[in-house]
Protein backbone atom coordinates (compact mmCIF):
# COMPACT_ATOMS: atom_id res chain seq x y z
CA UNK A 1 0.00 0.00 0.00
CA UNK A 2 2.76 2.32 1.05
CA UNK A 3 4.78 1.37 -2.01
CA UNK A 4 1.75 2.04 -4.20
CA UNK A 5 1.25 5.58 -2.90
CA UNK A 6 4.94 6.38 -3.17
CA UNK A 7 5.07 5.06 -6.72
CA UNK A 8 2.04 7.13 -7.76
CA UNK A 9 3.59 10.20 -6.15
CA UNK A 10 6.80 9.70 -7.98
CA UNK A 11 5.11 9.14 -11.36
CA UNK A 12 2.88 12.15 -10.80
CA UNK A 13 5.92 14.28 -9.98
CA UNK A 14 7.40 13.73 -13.43
CA UNK A 15 4.39 13.47 -15.70
CA UNK A 16 6.19 14.38 -18.91
CA UNK A 17 8.99 11.94 -18.41
CA UNK A 18 6.63 9.21 -17.25
CA UNK A 19 4.57 9.64 -20.39
CA UNK A 20 7.61 9.40 -22.66
CA UNK A 21 8.66 6.28 -20.79
CA UNK A 22 5.28 4.73 -21.40
CA UNK A 23 5.34 5.58 -25.10
CA UNK A 24 6.94 2.32 -26.18
CA UNK A 25 4.40 0.31 -24.22
CA UNK A 26 1.55 2.49 -25.51
CA UNK A 27 2.61 2.00 -29.12
CA UNK A 28 3.17 -1.71 -28.63
CA UNK A 29 -0.18 -2.36 -26.99
CA UNK A 30 -2.04 -0.17 -29.49
CA UNK A 31 -0.35 -1.95 -32.38
CA UNK A 32 -1.17 -5.41 -31.02
CA UNK A 33 -4.82 -4.58 -30.40
CA UNK A 34 -5.38 -2.85 -33.75
CA UNK A 35 -3.60 -5.65 -35.53
CA UNK A 36 -5.69 -8.37 -33.95
CA UNK A 37 -8.90 -6.43 -34.59
CA UNK A 38 -7.95 -5.83 -38.23
CA UNK A 39 -7.08 -9.47 -38.78
CA UNK A 40 -10.44 -10.51 -37.38
CA UNK A 41 -12.08 -7.95 -39.66
CA UNK A 42 -10.16 -9.27 -42.64
CA UNK A 43 -11.14 -12.83 -41.80
CA UNK A 44 -14.77 -11.86 -41.39
CA UNK A 45 -14.54 -10.16 -44.78
CA UNK A 46 -12.97 -13.19 -46.47
CA UNK A 47 -15.45 -15.56 -44.88
CA UNK A 48 -18.36 -13.38 -45.95
CA UNK A 49 -16.98 -13.31 -49.49
CA UNK A 50 -16.70 -17.08 -49.68
CA UNK A 51 -20.09 -17.50 -48.10
CA UNK A 52 -21.61 -15.36 -50.82
CA UNK A 53 -19.90 -17.50 -53.40
CA UNK A 54 -21.34 -20.48 -51.63
CA UNK A 55 -19.40 -22.69 -49.31
CA UNK A 56 -19.17 -26.48 -48.99
CA UNK A 57 -18.52 -27.32 -52.60
CA UNK A 58 -16.54 -29.99 -54.36
CA UNK A 59 -15.13 -28.78 -57.68
CA UNK A 60 -14.51 -31.31 -60.40
CA UNK A 61 -12.32 -30.37 -63.34
CA UNK A 62 -11.92 -32.50 -66.45
CA UNK A 63 -8.53 -31.67 -67.87
CA UNK A 64 -9.27 -33.65 -71.00
CA UNK A 65 -11.97 -36.13 -71.96
CA UNK A 66 -12.75 -38.21 -75.01
CA UNK A 67 -16.53 -37.96 -75.35
CA UNK A 68 -16.68 -40.35 -78.24
CA UNK A 69 -15.47 -43.26 -76.14
CA UNK A 70 -17.35 -42.86 -72.89
CA UNK A 71 -20.47 -41.69 -71.09
CA UNK A 72 -21.27 -38.05 -70.40
CA UNK A 73 -19.42 -37.42 -67.13
CA UNK A 74 -21.61 -34.50 -66.11
CA UNK A 75 -24.80 -36.54 -66.52
CA UNK A 76 -23.27 -39.40 -64.61
CA UNK A 77 -22.14 -37.19 -61.73
CA UNK A 78 -25.54 -35.47 -61.65
CA UNK A 79 -27.30 -38.78 -61.25
CA UNK A 80 -24.71 -40.23 -58.87
CA UNK A 81 -24.75 -37.09 -56.71
CA UNK A 82 -28.49 -36.74 -56.53
CA UNK A 83 -29.40 -40.37 -56.22
CA UNK A 84 -26.54 -42.28 -54.64
CA UNK A 85 -25.10 -39.61 -52.36
CA UNK A 86 -28.59 -38.40 -51.51
CA UNK A 87 -29.06 -35.87 -48.73
CA UNK A 88 -25.42 -34.97 -48.50
CA UNK A 89 -25.56 -33.39 -51.96
CA UNK A 90 -27.72 -30.32 -52.41
CA UNK A 91 -27.02 -29.80 -56.05
CA UNK A 92 -24.87 -30.53 -59.07
CA UNK A 93 -24.28 -27.98 -61.79
CA UNK A 94 -21.75 -27.33 -64.50
CA UNK A 95 -19.57 -24.38 -63.64
CA UNK A 96 -19.16 -22.50 -66.84
CA UNK A 97 -19.41 -18.77 -67.34
CA UNK A 98 -18.95 -16.35 -70.15
CA UNK A 99 -19.14 -12.58 -70.45
CA UNK A 100 -21.64 -11.31 -73.00
CA UNK A 101 -23.52 -8.11 -73.74
CA UNK A 102 -27.22 -8.20 -72.82
CA UNK A 103 -29.68 -6.34 -74.93
CA UNK A 104 -33.23 -5.42 -74.02
CA UNK A 105 -35.00 -3.28 -76.58
CA UNK A 106 -32.69 -0.31 -76.99
CA UNK A 107 -30.75 -0.80 -73.77
CA UNK A 108 -27.53 -2.80 -73.70
CA UNK A 109 -25.49 -3.95 -70.70
CA UNK A 110 -21.98 -4.21 -72.09
CA UNK A 111 -20.73 -7.21 -70.22
CA UNK A 112 -22.72 -9.49 -68.04
CA UNK A 113 -21.62 -12.73 -66.47
CA UNK A 114 -23.64 -15.54 -68.01
CA UNK A 115 -23.76 -18.73 -65.96
CA UNK A 116 -24.45 -21.89 -67.87
CA UNK A 117 -26.08 -23.94 -65.18
CA UNK A 118 -28.32 -26.85 -64.40
CA UNK A 119 -31.68 -26.80 -62.65
CA UNK A 120 -29.60 -26.95 -59.45
CA UNK A 121 -27.48 -23.93 -60.37
CA UNK A 122 -29.06 -21.67 -57.75
CA UNK A 123 -28.39 -24.11 -54.91
CA UNK A 124 -24.81 -24.61 -56.07
CA UNK A 125 -24.03 -20.89 -56.27
CA UNK A 126 -26.03 -19.54 -53.38
CA UNK A 127 -28.69 -17.69 -55.38
CA UNK A 128 -32.31 -17.65 -54.24
CA UNK A 129 -35.26 -17.22 -56.54
CA UNK A 130 -37.28 -14.08 -55.88
CA UNK A 131 -39.89 -14.09 -58.62
CA UNK A 132 -41.11 -16.38 -61.37
CA UNK A 133 -39.51 -19.80 -61.66
CA UNK A 134 -36.00 -21.18 -61.81
CA UNK A 135 -34.34 -23.18 -64.57
CA UNK A 136 -35.98 -26.61 -64.72
CA UNK A 137 -34.77 -30.05 -65.67
CA UNK A 138 -37.11 -29.84 -68.61
CA UNK A 139 -35.47 -26.54 -69.74
CA UNK A 140 -32.12 -28.29 -69.69
CA UNK A 141 -33.42 -31.28 -71.66
CA UNK A 142 -35.26 -29.14 -74.17
CA UNK A 143 -32.47 -26.59 -74.42
CA UNK A 144 -35.12 -23.93 -73.84
CA UNK A 145 -33.94 -20.38 -74.47
CA UNK A 146 -34.91 -19.13 -71.02
CA UNK A 147 -32.99 -17.20 -68.38
CA UNK A 148 -33.10 -15.98 -64.79
CA UNK A 149 -31.78 -12.50 -63.99
CA UNK A 150 -29.60 -11.39 -61.13
CA UNK A 151 -30.93 -8.41 -59.22
CA UNK A 152 -28.59 -5.87 -60.84
CA UNK A 153 -29.61 -6.90 -64.35
CA UNK A 154 -33.29 -6.98 -63.44
CA UNK A 155 -33.15 -3.57 -61.74
CA UNK A 156 -31.15 -1.97 -64.51
CA UNK A 157 -33.06 -3.24 -67.51
CA UNK A 158 -36.49 -3.18 -65.87
CA UNK A 159 -36.57 -0.33 -63.43
CA UNK A 160 -40.32 0.12 -63.63
CA UNK A 161 -41.74 -3.04 -65.19
CA UNK A 162 -41.94 -6.73 -64.42
CA UNK A 163 -39.17 -8.52 -66.35
CA UNK A 164 -40.87 -11.92 -66.34
CA UNK A 165 -42.08 -12.88 -69.79
CA UNK A 166 -39.88 -10.25 -71.48
CA UNK A 167 -37.16 -11.14 -73.94
CA UNK A 168 -33.45 -10.26 -73.76
CA UNK A 169 -30.83 -10.96 -76.43
CA UNK A 170 -27.55 -12.73 -75.72
CA UNK A 171 -25.25 -13.00 -78.71
CA UNK A 172 -28.25 -12.10 -80.82
CA UNK A 173 -30.25 -15.07 -79.49
CA UNK A 174 -33.57 -14.23 -77.82
CA UNK A 175 -34.06 -15.55 -74.26
CA UNK A 176 -37.32 -15.45 -72.36
CA UNK A 177 -36.99 -14.24 -68.81
CA UNK A 178 -38.60 -16.76 -66.48
CA UNK A 179 -37.47 -15.51 -63.08
CA UNK A 180 -35.29 -13.22 -60.97
CA UNK A 181 -32.91 -13.87 -58.07
CA UNK A 182 -32.78 -12.01 -54.77
CA UNK A 183 -29.95 -9.55 -54.37
CA UNK A 184 -27.12 -11.37 -52.58
CA UNK A 185 -24.06 -9.12 -52.91
CA UNK A 186 -25.12 -5.50 -52.56
CA UNK A 187 -26.66 -5.28 -56.02
CA UNK A 188 -24.01 -3.01 -57.54
CA UNK A 189 -22.55 -3.22 -61.03
CA UNK A 190 -19.37 -4.93 -59.82
CA UNK A 191 -21.25 -7.36 -57.56
CA UNK A 192 -22.27 -10.98 -57.97
CA UNK A 193 -25.78 -9.72 -58.73
CA UNK A 194 -24.64 -8.64 -62.18
CA UNK A 195 -25.43 -12.02 -63.77
CA UNK A 196 -27.84 -14.13 -65.74
CA UNK A 197 -28.27 -17.90 -65.59
CA UNK A 198 -29.24 -19.98 -68.64
CA UNK A 199 -29.49 -23.74 -69.26
CA UNK A 200 -26.00 -25.17 -69.69
CA UNK A 201 -27.23 -27.23 -72.63
CA UNK A 202 -27.09 -24.02 -74.68
CA UNK A 203 -23.32 -24.04 -74.40
CA UNK A 204 -22.93 -24.89 -78.07
CA UNK A 205 -24.67 -21.63 -78.95
CA UNK A 206 -23.10 -19.45 -76.28
CA UNK A 207 -19.63 -20.97 -75.73
CA UNK A 208 -19.00 -22.62 -79.04
CA UNK A 209 -18.20 -25.77 -77.08
CA UNK A 210 -20.32 -28.73 -76.25
CA UNK A 211 -18.29 -30.09 -73.37
CA UNK A 212 -18.86 -29.57 -69.68
CA UNK A 213 -15.33 -29.46 -68.27
CA UNK A 214 -16.04 -28.17 -64.78
CA UNK A 215 -18.71 -29.36 -62.35
CA UNK A 216 -19.74 -28.02 -58.99
CA UNK A 217 -21.17 -30.38 -56.41
CA UNK A 218 -22.79 -28.57 -53.50
CA UNK A 219 -22.59 -30.42 -50.17
CA UNK A 220 -24.98 -29.82 -47.26
CA UNK A 221 -22.44 -29.31 -44.43
CA UNK A 222 -18.72 -28.68 -44.23
CA UNK A 223 -18.31 -31.99 -42.36
CA UNK A 224 -19.54 -33.89 -45.41
CA UNK A 225 -17.35 -32.18 -47.99
CA UNK A 226 -14.50 -34.65 -47.66
CA UNK A 227 -16.86 -37.64 -47.60
CA UNK A 228 -18.49 -36.53 -50.83
CA UNK A 229 -15.12 -35.70 -52.37
CA UNK A 230 -13.79 -39.18 -51.59
CA UNK A 231 -16.94 -40.88 -52.86
CA UNK A 232 -16.74 -38.89 -56.10
CA UNK A 233 -13.09 -39.77 -56.45
CA UNK A 234 -13.85 -43.48 -56.25
CA UNK A 235 -16.77 -43.09 -58.65
CA UNK A 236 -14.85 -41.01 -61.18
CA UNK A 237 -11.80 -43.25 -61.09
CA UNK A 238 -13.97 -46.01 -62.49
CA UNK A 239 -15.81 -43.76 -64.91
CA UNK A 240 -12.87 -41.86 -66.34
CA UNK A 241 -10.09 -44.33 -66.94
CA UNK A 242 -6.78 -42.81 -67.85
CA UNK A 243 -7.21 -43.78 -71.47
CA UNK A 244 -10.34 -41.68 -71.90
CA UNK A 245 -9.57 -38.66 -69.77
CA UNK A 246 -8.20 -37.04 -66.67
CA UNK A 247 -9.96 -35.29 -63.83
CA UNK A 248 -9.16 -33.51 -60.62
CA UNK A 249 -11.16 -32.84 -57.45
CA UNK A 250 -10.90 -29.92 -55.09
CA UNK A 251 -12.44 -29.10 -51.74
CA UNK A 252 -14.01 -25.69 -52.34
CA UNK A 253 -13.54 -24.69 -48.71
CA UNK A 254 -9.80 -25.11 -48.92
CA UNK A 255 -9.32 -21.73 -50.58
CA UNK A 256 -11.11 -20.04 -47.68
CA UNK A 257 -9.25 -22.12 -45.10
CA UNK A 258 -6.01 -21.30 -46.82
CA UNK A 259 -6.55 -17.59 -46.84
CA UNK A 260 -7.64 -17.49 -43.20
CA UNK A 261 -4.64 -19.61 -42.29
CA UNK A 262 -2.48 -17.26 -44.28
CA UNK A 263 -3.74 -14.25 -42.37
CA UNK A 264 -3.30 -16.16 -39.13
CA UNK A 265 0.36 -16.82 -39.85
CA UNK A 266 0.81 -13.30 -41.09
CA UNK A 267 -0.72 -11.89 -37.93
CA UNK A 268 1.73 -13.97 -35.90
CA UNK A 269 4.56 -12.25 -37.75
CA UNK A 270 3.00 -8.81 -37.33
CA UNK A 271 2.24 -9.61 -33.70
CA UNK A 272 5.91 -10.47 -33.27
CA UNK A 273 6.85 -7.08 -34.66
CA UNK A 274 4.39 -5.40 -32.31
CA UNK A 275 5.88 -7.30 -29.38
CA UNK A 276 9.25 -5.86 -30.31
CA UNK A 277 7.69 -2.46 -29.72
CA UNK A 278 6.60 -3.73 -26.31
CA UNK A 279 10.09 -5.01 -25.65
CA UNK A 280 11.60 -1.69 -26.64
CA UNK A 281 9.06 -0.10 -24.31
CA UNK A 282 10.33 -2.39 -21.57
CA UNK A 283 13.89 -1.31 -22.18
CA UNK A 284 12.72 2.30 -22.00
CA UNK A 285 11.21 1.53 -18.63
CA UNK A 286 14.39 -0.12 -17.45
CA UNK A 287 16.33 2.91 -18.56
CA UNK A 288 14.09 5.35 -16.75
CA UNK A 289 14.03 3.17 -13.65
CA UNK A 290 17.83 3.18 -13.62
CA UNK A 291 17.71 6.96 -13.78
CA UNK A 292 15.15 6.98 -10.98
CA UNK A 293 17.36 4.73 -8.87
CA UNK A 294 20.28 7.11 -9.40
CA UNK A 295 18.13 10.08 -8.53
CA UNK A 296 16.87 8.41 -5.43
CA UNK A 297 20.05 6.77 -4.25
CA UNK A 298 20.16 9.08 -1.25
CA UNK A 299 16.57 8.22 -0.34
CA UNK A 300 17.46 4.54 -0.63
CA UNK A 301 20.44 5.19 1.66
CA UNK A 302 18.25 6.90 4.25
CA UNK A 303 15.75 4.05 4.17
CA UNK A 304 18.48 1.48 4.52
CA UNK A 305 20.10 3.35 7.39
CA UNK A 306 16.83 3.22 9.31
CA UNK A 307 16.38 -0.48 8.69
CA UNK A 308 14.48 -0.87 5.43
CA UNK A 309 14.72 -4.48 4.28
CA UNK A 310 15.98 -5.19 0.77
CA UNK A 311 12.56 -6.51 -0.22
CA UNK A 312 11.03 -3.13 0.62
CA UNK A 313 13.37 -1.31 -1.74
CA UNK A 314 12.84 -3.89 -4.49
CA UNK A 315 9.07 -3.73 -4.08
CA UNK A 316 9.09 0.04 -4.25
CA UNK A 317 10.82 0.10 -7.61
CA UNK A 318 8.96 -2.88 -9.05
CA UNK A 319 5.62 -1.36 -8.12
CA UNK A 320 6.64 1.87 -9.78
CA UNK A 321 7.81 0.10 -12.93
CA UNK A 322 4.66 -2.03 -12.97
CA UNK A 323 2.39 0.96 -12.56
CA UNK A 324 4.28 2.88 -15.21
CA UNK A 325 3.94 0.10 -17.77
CA UNK A 326 0.41 -0.76 -16.63
CA UNK A 327 -0.66 2.82 -17.19
CA UNK A 328 1.02 2.68 -20.59
CA UNK A 329 -0.94 -0.50 -21.23
CA UNK A 330 -4.22 1.14 -20.30
CA UNK A 331 -3.56 4.14 -22.53
CA UNK A 332 -2.56 1.72 -25.30
CA UNK A 333 -5.81 -0.21 -24.81
CA UNK A 334 -7.86 2.98 -25.04
CA UNK A 335 -6.03 4.02 -28.22
CA UNK A 336 -6.26 0.49 -29.61
CA UNK A 337 -10.04 0.41 -29.13
CA UNK A 338 -10.44 3.84 -30.71
CA UNK A 339 -8.25 3.05 -33.69
CA UNK A 340 -9.84 -0.36 -34.23
CA UNK A 341 -13.26 1.25 -34.35
CA UNK A 342 -12.17 3.91 -36.81
CA UNK A 343 -10.17 1.59 -39.07
CA UNK A 344 -12.74 -1.20 -38.88
CA UNK A 345 -15.43 1.18 -40.03
CA UNK A 346 -13.27 2.59 -42.79
CA UNK A 347 -11.81 -0.68 -44.12
CA UNK A 348 -14.47 -3.32 -43.54
CA UNK A 349 -17.54 -1.32 -42.55
CA UNK A 350 -17.63 -3.42 -39.38
CA UNK A 351 -17.64 -2.51 -35.70
CA UNK A 352 -14.33 -4.08 -34.80
CA UNK A 353 -13.17 -4.28 -31.19
CA UNK A 354 -10.16 -6.17 -29.86
CA UNK A 355 -11.33 -9.28 -28.04
CA UNK A 356 -11.45 -9.30 -24.25
CA UNK A 357 -8.84 -12.05 -24.16
CA UNK A 358 -6.38 -10.14 -26.32
CA UNK A 359 -6.98 -6.97 -24.32
CA UNK A 360 -6.42 -8.71 -21.01
CA UNK A 361 -3.38 -10.43 -22.48
CA UNK A 362 -1.87 -7.18 -23.75
CA UNK A 363 -2.43 -5.51 -20.38
CA UNK A 364 -0.93 -8.38 -18.43
CA UNK A 365 1.98 -8.54 -20.82
CA UNK A 366 2.71 -4.82 -20.48
CA UNK A 367 2.63 -4.97 -16.69
CA UNK A 368 4.85 -8.03 -16.81
CA UNK A 369 7.27 -6.22 -19.12
CA UNK A 370 7.49 -3.33 -16.68
CA UNK A 371 8.12 -5.64 -13.77
CA UNK A 372 10.63 -7.80 -15.62
CA UNK A 373 12.58 -4.81 -16.86
CA UNK A 374 12.20 -3.18 -13.45
CA UNK A 375 13.92 -6.09 -11.71
CA UNK A 376 17.44 -5.12 -12.68
CA UNK A 377 17.19 -1.49 -11.49
CA UNK A 378 15.31 -2.56 -8.37
CA UNK A 379 17.85 -5.20 -7.39
CA UNK A 380 20.64 -2.79 -8.18
CA UNK A 381 19.08 -0.25 -5.83
CA UNK A 382 18.54 -2.79 -3.09
CA UNK A 383 22.13 -4.02 -3.25
CA UNK A 384 23.66 -0.64 -2.54
CA UNK A 385 25.77 -0.49 0.60
CA UNK A 386 23.93 1.97 2.90
CA UNK A 387 26.94 4.21 3.29
CA UNK A 388 27.51 4.37 -0.47
CA UNK A 389 23.88 5.25 -1.05
CA UNK A 390 23.98 7.95 1.61
CA UNK A 391 27.00 9.58 0.03
CA UNK A 392 25.03 10.39 -3.12
CA UNK A 393 23.42 13.78 -3.46
Amino acid at each position, binding site marked *: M*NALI*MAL*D*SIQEKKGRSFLTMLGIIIGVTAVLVLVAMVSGYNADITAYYEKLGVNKVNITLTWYDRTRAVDVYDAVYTYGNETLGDMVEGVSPSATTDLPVKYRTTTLDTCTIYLGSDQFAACNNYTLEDGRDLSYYDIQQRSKVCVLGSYVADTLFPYTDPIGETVYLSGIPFTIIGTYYQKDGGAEDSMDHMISVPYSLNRELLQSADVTAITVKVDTSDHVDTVLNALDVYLAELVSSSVGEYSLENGNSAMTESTEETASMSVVLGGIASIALLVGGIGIMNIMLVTVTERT*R*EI*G*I*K*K*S*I*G*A*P*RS*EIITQFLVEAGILSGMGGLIGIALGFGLSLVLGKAMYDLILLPSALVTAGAFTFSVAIGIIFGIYPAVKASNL*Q*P*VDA*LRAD
Partner: protein
Amino acid sequence: MSLIQLQNVYKIYGEGRENQVNALDGVSLEIDRGEFVAVIGASGSGKSTMMNILGCLDVPTYGEYYLDGVPIREKSRRELELIRSRQISFIFQGYNLIPSLKVWENVALPMLYQKIPLAQRKERAMAALEQVEILSKADSRPTQLSGGQQQRVAIARAIATGSPVLMADEPTGALDSKTGTQVLSLMKELNAGGTTVILITHDNSIAAQARRTVQVRDGHIVHDSVWDGVLVPAVGAG
Protein backbone atom coordinates in the same frame (compact mmCIF):
# COMPACT_ATOMS: atom_id res chain seq x y z
CA MET B 1 30.97 -8.23 27.62
CA SER B 2 31.14 -4.90 25.85
CA LEU B 3 28.33 -3.80 23.62
CA ILE B 4 30.76 -2.72 20.93
CA GLN B 5 34.23 -4.03 20.29
CA LEU B 6 36.50 -3.09 17.39
CA GLN B 7 39.61 -5.25 17.02
CA ASN B 8 42.39 -3.86 14.85
CA VAL B 9 39.98 -2.53 12.22
CA TYR B 10 41.19 -1.16 8.89
CA LYS B 11 39.22 0.65 6.27
CA ILE B 12 41.18 1.18 3.10
CA TYR B 13 39.95 3.28 0.21
CA GLY B 14 41.44 3.43 -3.24
CA GLU B 15 43.50 1.04 -5.33
CA GLY B 16 47.26 0.91 -5.64
CA ARG B 17 50.02 2.12 -3.36
CA GLU B 18 49.78 5.81 -4.30
CA ASN B 19 46.01 6.23 -4.22
CA GLN B 20 45.45 4.08 -1.18
CA VAL B 21 43.95 5.83 1.87
CA ASN B 22 43.83 4.07 5.20
CA ALA B 23 40.80 5.86 6.59
CA LEU B 24 41.03 3.53 9.58
CA ASP B 25 44.50 2.25 10.25
CA GLY B 26 44.17 -0.47 12.86
CA VAL B 27 41.56 0.79 15.29
CA SER B 28 40.60 -1.02 18.48
CA LEU B 29 37.84 0.26 20.73
CA GLU B 30 35.37 -0.95 23.31
CA ILE B 31 32.15 0.76 24.31
CA ASP B 32 29.81 -0.44 27.04
CA ARG B 33 26.06 -0.17 27.31
CA GLY B 34 24.84 3.18 28.60
CA GLU B 35 28.00 5.10 27.81
CA PHE B 36 28.06 8.60 26.34
CA VAL B 37 31.09 8.78 24.08
CA ALA B 38 32.26 11.81 22.14
CA VAL B 39 34.51 11.16 19.15
CA ILE B 40 36.68 14.09 18.21
CA GLY B 41 39.37 14.70 15.63
CA ALA B 42 40.29 16.85 12.66
CA SER B 43 38.34 16.68 9.45
CA GLY B 44 39.40 13.64 7.43
CA SER B 45 40.78 11.82 10.43
CA GLY B 46 38.40 8.86 10.02
CA LYS B 47 35.60 9.60 12.50
CA SER B 48 32.74 9.08 10.06
CA THR B 49 34.34 6.00 8.62
CA MET B 50 34.51 4.49 12.09
CA MET B 51 30.97 5.50 12.93
CA ASN B 52 29.60 4.00 9.70
CA ILE B 53 31.24 0.71 10.53
CA LEU B 54 29.91 0.82 14.10
CA GLY B 55 26.42 1.49 12.72
CA CYS B 56 26.59 -1.41 10.24
CA LEU B 57 26.26 0.99 7.34
CA ASP B 58 29.68 -0.10 6.09
CA VAL B 59 32.07 -2.99 6.60
CA PRO B 60 35.76 -3.01 7.63
CA THR B 61 38.39 -3.92 5.07
CA TYR B 62 40.25 -5.90 7.75
CA GLY B 63 39.72 -6.56 11.42
CA GLU B 64 36.76 -7.63 13.49
CA TYR B 65 33.75 -5.79 14.81
CA TYR B 66 31.83 -7.55 17.57
CA LEU B 67 28.37 -6.28 18.37
CA ASP B 68 27.00 -7.85 21.53
CA GLY B 69 29.87 -10.31 21.26
CA VAL B 70 28.93 -11.54 17.79
CA PRO B 71 31.26 -10.77 14.85
CA ILE B 72 29.47 -8.64 12.27
CA ARG B 73 31.00 -10.47 9.33
CA GLU B 74 29.10 -13.61 10.36
CA LYS B 75 25.76 -11.87 10.13
CA SER B 76 23.48 -12.24 7.13
CA ARG B 77 22.19 -9.31 5.16
CA ARG B 78 18.82 -9.75 6.82
CA GLU B 79 20.37 -9.75 10.30
CA LEU B 80 22.19 -6.51 9.49
CA GLU B 81 18.90 -5.00 8.34
CA LEU B 82 17.37 -5.99 11.65
CA ILE B 83 20.26 -4.40 13.56
CA ARG B 84 19.77 -1.14 11.66
CA SER B 85 16.07 -1.41 12.24
CA ARG B 86 16.01 -2.26 15.95
CA GLN B 87 19.44 -1.83 17.56
CA ILE B 88 21.04 1.33 16.24
CA SER B 89 19.62 4.73 15.32
CA PHE B 90 21.52 7.37 13.41
CA ILE B 91 21.54 11.12 13.42
CA PHE B 92 23.46 12.76 10.59
CA GLN B 93 24.81 16.22 10.05
CA GLY B 94 22.60 16.48 6.94
CA TYR B 95 19.44 15.29 8.83
CA ASN B 96 18.61 12.69 6.17
CA LEU B 97 14.87 13.10 6.19
CA ILE B 98 12.87 11.97 3.16
CA PRO B 99 11.56 15.13 1.48
CA SER B 100 8.47 13.56 -0.07
CA LEU B 101 7.16 12.35 3.30
CA LYS B 102 5.51 14.47 5.98
CA VAL B 103 7.38 15.10 9.22
CA TRP B 104 5.41 12.53 11.19
CA GLU B 105 5.69 9.99 8.37
CA ASN B 106 9.45 10.39 8.47
CA VAL B 107 9.41 9.76 12.20
CA ALA B 108 7.13 6.74 11.78
CA LEU B 109 8.99 5.16 8.84
CA PRO B 110 11.51 3.04 10.83
CA MET B 111 8.59 1.55 12.77
CA LEU B 112 7.08 0.43 9.44
CA TYR B 113 10.18 -1.72 8.97
CA GLN B 114 9.65 -3.05 12.49
CA LYS B 115 6.16 -4.11 11.33
CA ILE B 116 4.39 -1.99 13.92
CA PRO B 117 0.73 -1.31 13.00
CA LEU B 118 -0.11 2.11 11.58
CA ALA B 119 -2.14 3.42 14.52
CA GLN B 120 0.65 2.64 16.93
CA ARG B 121 3.26 4.06 14.57
CA LYS B 122 1.41 7.33 14.38
CA GLU B 123 0.88 7.48 18.12
CA ARG B 124 4.54 6.87 18.88
CA ALA B 125 5.67 9.32 16.20
CA MET B 126 3.47 12.03 17.67
CA ALA B 127 4.78 11.32 21.18
CA ALA B 128 8.37 11.57 19.95
CA LEU B 129 7.63 14.83 18.13
CA GLU B 130 6.11 16.16 21.32
CA GLN B 131 9.24 15.16 23.26
CA VAL B 132 11.44 17.20 20.90
CA GLU B 133 8.85 20.01 21.01
CA ILE B 134 7.98 20.09 17.34
CA LEU B 135 4.56 18.45 17.33
CA SER B 136 3.02 21.48 15.58
CA LYS B 137 5.03 20.66 12.47
CA ALA B 138 3.87 17.04 12.25
CA ASP B 139 2.06 17.54 8.95
CA SER B 140 4.68 19.77 7.33
CA ARG B 141 7.29 18.61 4.83
CA PRO B 142 10.88 18.52 6.08
CA THR B 143 11.94 21.22 3.61
CA GLN B 144 9.55 23.68 5.27
CA LEU B 145 11.52 23.40 8.51
CA SER B 146 14.69 25.13 9.71
CA GLY B 147 17.87 23.15 10.18
CA GLY B 148 17.46 22.93 13.93
CA GLN B 149 13.87 21.80 13.53
CA GLN B 150 14.87 19.16 10.98
CA GLN B 151 17.54 17.84 13.30
CA ARG B 152 14.98 17.58 16.09
CA VAL B 153 12.75 15.60 13.72
CA ALA B 154 15.69 13.30 13.06
CA ILE B 155 16.11 12.89 16.83
CA ALA B 156 12.40 12.21 17.18
CA ARG B 157 12.79 9.51 14.54
CA ALA B 158 15.57 7.94 16.59
CA ILE B 159 13.52 8.19 19.79
CA ALA B 160 10.44 6.63 18.19
CA THR B 161 12.52 3.77 16.85
CA GLY B 162 13.32 2.79 20.43
CA SER B 163 16.84 1.64 19.59
CA PRO B 164 19.19 1.09 22.52
CA VAL B 165 22.08 2.74 20.66
CA LEU B 166 22.15 6.24 19.17
CA MET B 167 24.96 7.31 16.87
CA ALA B 168 25.25 10.92 15.80
CA ASP B 169 27.71 12.19 13.18
CA GLU B 170 28.24 15.90 13.81
CA PRO B 171 24.55 16.49 14.50
CA THR B 172 25.16 20.09 15.50
CA GLY B 173 27.62 20.84 12.71
CA ALA B 174 25.13 22.80 10.65
CA LEU B 175 23.33 24.43 13.57
CA ASP B 176 23.91 27.63 15.49
CA SER B 177 25.21 27.14 19.01
CA LYS B 178 21.85 27.70 20.70
CA THR B 179 20.00 25.04 18.67
CA GLY B 180 23.12 22.90 18.95
CA THR B 181 22.82 23.02 22.71
CA GLN B 182 19.14 22.02 22.51
CA VAL B 183 19.99 19.05 20.32
CA LEU B 184 22.78 18.03 22.66
CA SER B 185 20.58 18.21 25.74
CA LEU B 186 18.05 15.95 23.98
CA MET B 187 20.75 13.37 23.51
CA LYS B 188 21.86 13.66 27.10
CA GLU B 189 18.27 13.09 28.12
CA LEU B 190 18.16 9.91 26.04
CA ASN B 191 21.44 8.77 27.57
CA ALA B 192 20.02 9.37 31.01
CA GLY B 193 17.19 7.06 30.00
CA GLY B 194 19.66 4.27 29.25
CA THR B 195 20.47 4.80 25.58
CA THR B 196 24.08 4.34 24.60
CA VAL B 197 25.15 7.49 22.75
CA ILE B 198 28.13 7.87 20.45
CA LEU B 199 28.58 11.42 19.22
CA ILE B 200 31.02 12.73 16.64
CA THR B 201 31.83 16.40 17.05
CA HIS B 202 34.62 18.80 16.35
CA ASP B 203 33.21 21.23 18.92
CA ASN B 204 35.32 20.87 22.07
CA SER B 205 32.69 22.50 24.26
CA ILE B 206 30.26 19.80 23.23
CA ALA B 207 32.83 17.06 23.63
CA ALA B 208 33.56 18.36 27.09
CA GLN B 209 30.03 17.46 28.13
CA ALA B 210 30.59 13.78 27.36
CA ARG B 211 31.72 11.33 30.01
CA ARG B 212 34.21 9.81 27.64
CA THR B 213 36.12 11.34 24.75
CA VAL B 214 37.85 9.40 22.00
CA GLN B 215 40.26 11.31 19.81
CA VAL B 216 41.01 10.13 16.28
CA ARG B 217 43.92 11.23 14.13
CA ASP B 218 44.92 9.82 10.73
CA GLY B 219 42.90 6.68 11.23
CA HIS B 220 44.26 5.96 14.70
CA ILE B 221 42.73 6.47 18.13
CA VAL B 222 45.27 8.66 19.83
CA HIS B 223 43.50 9.50 23.08
CA ASP B 224 40.68 7.88 25.01
CA SER B 225 39.85 9.88 28.12
CA VAL B 226 37.11 9.67 30.75
CA TRP B 227 35.07 12.66 31.89
CA ASP B 228 37.25 13.65 34.86
CA GLY B 229 39.89 14.64 32.34
CA VAL B 230 42.42 11.97 33.27
CA LEU B 231 44.00 10.59 30.10
CA VAL B 232 44.02 6.84 29.70
CA PRO B 233 46.10 5.20 26.99
CA ALA B 234 44.07 4.13 23.97
CA VAL B 235 43.81 0.39 23.33
CA GLY B 236 46.54 -0.53 20.91
CA ALA B 237 47.69 3.07 20.46
CA GLY B 238 51.40 3.37 19.83
